[in-house]
């Protein structure tokens, strides 16, 4: 394959998505503001895999899911974050986050053609758990606007990385790669769920 025929944008976004550090999302650093909000979704593999999977699933389902799922996830996640900030309890948050990787990964791997409302419902339901984790673990000194901005942009970037990689879906080899990515995400979610990771 010639270089100029390679899907460079999706590959670049995928590489960006893989530039995450160790799972530090759920450790309180005490740093506030934009950096903290931005880093929280990006520096934890449990969040990364699910948010990338949302973008991937949107790309697999095509329009309008392509833009609707990445629109639903940050919105509902913000609601979950608000619940966490206000101290409202939510059971089994970590289980929900890990399960989101399994379910969303399998949706991508199986390319299940879910109706739009079902896809939005599944995505939104899992977004609550991710948001709640962000909301309860944010530093007390975080500036609201800077934190919110960083938090939403970080999430959006992960969705876009998923969408970027999901654009490979248009070619047969690309489909294989996207399905394999979905499988890897489901496996990662399974590892989080069983405590292996």
């Amino acid at each position, binding site marked *: 394959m010639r270089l100029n025929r390679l899907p460079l944008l999706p590959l670049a976004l995928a590489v960006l998505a893989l530039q995450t550090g160790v799972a530090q999302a759920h450790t309180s650093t005490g740093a506030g503001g934009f950096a903290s909000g931005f880093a929280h979704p990006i520096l934890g593999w449990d969040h990364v895999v699910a948010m990338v999977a949302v973008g991937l699933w949107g790309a697999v389902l095509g329009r309008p899911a392509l*833009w609707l799922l*990445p*629109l639903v996830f*940050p919105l509902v996640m913000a609601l979950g*974050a*608000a619940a966490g900030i206000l101290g409202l309890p939510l059971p089994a948050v970590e289980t929900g986050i890990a399960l989101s990787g399994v379910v969303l990964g399998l949706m991508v791997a199986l390319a299940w053609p879910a109706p739009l409302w079902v896809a939005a419902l599944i995505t939104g339901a899992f977004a609550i758990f991710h948001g709640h984790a962000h909301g309860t673990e944010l530093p*007390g000194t975080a500036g609201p606007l800077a*934190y919110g901005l960083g938090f*939403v*942009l970080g999430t959006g970037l992960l969705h876009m990385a998923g969408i970027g990689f999901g654009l490979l879906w248009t070619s047969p080899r690309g489909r294989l790669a996207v399905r394999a990515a979905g499988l890897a995400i489901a496996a990662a979610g399974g590892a989080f769920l069983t405590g292996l990771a």
Partner: protein
Amino acid sequence: MRQAQLRLLPSVLTNLGVLALPGMALPGTALAHPGSTLQHQAGDFTLGLGLSLGLLESLLPLIALGLALAGRPRLPWLPMLIGLGAGLSLAGLAPEGIGAAALGAGCLLALVTALCPPPLPAALQGAAAVLLPGLAVASLYHGGSATPPMAMILGSLSGVMLAVLGPALGGRQILRLPGKIPALALRIAASWLAAILIIVLAFVLAGPPDGL
């Protein structure tokens, strides 16, 4: 397109002047600064401008309004004037939660903008153009025992107008681009703004953290 923008400029400036009228209608407290110089007034103006552009309770809902108005050929100046006048007049009576109300209203409007294709129904835009500037200005000046200097009020009103005009004109330019992507981009921006507003509203409702 550039010519159209240039044609729009005088009307925008005129409208900014018109929108300052409610501020002038307030009882004057220029006497609070007897012998005040132009420098003092400029300072008051800058303070008012910074107040409306720097406080989240006023800024974020106004950006939401700007995005909601992006699909309109003309901005609804009269409803905004009415809202600003009402907000200024009633600010003294506004309760402590007026800032949260402004954020909540802005959040709802951003949600509607995200979920409905542009342009939004004119009635909704008109109602929002009254409500949001009113809430924003009331959240700036609520609970004050003294009437602020006129230059400060003018600064705040200018800030309010800038906060609406910026996203509205920017959004209008984006919507003029061909294809479906621009409208989609505007809706995604509105959804992200709604998400940010939800988080900021939660911070406001939760109050300051312990120890602060």
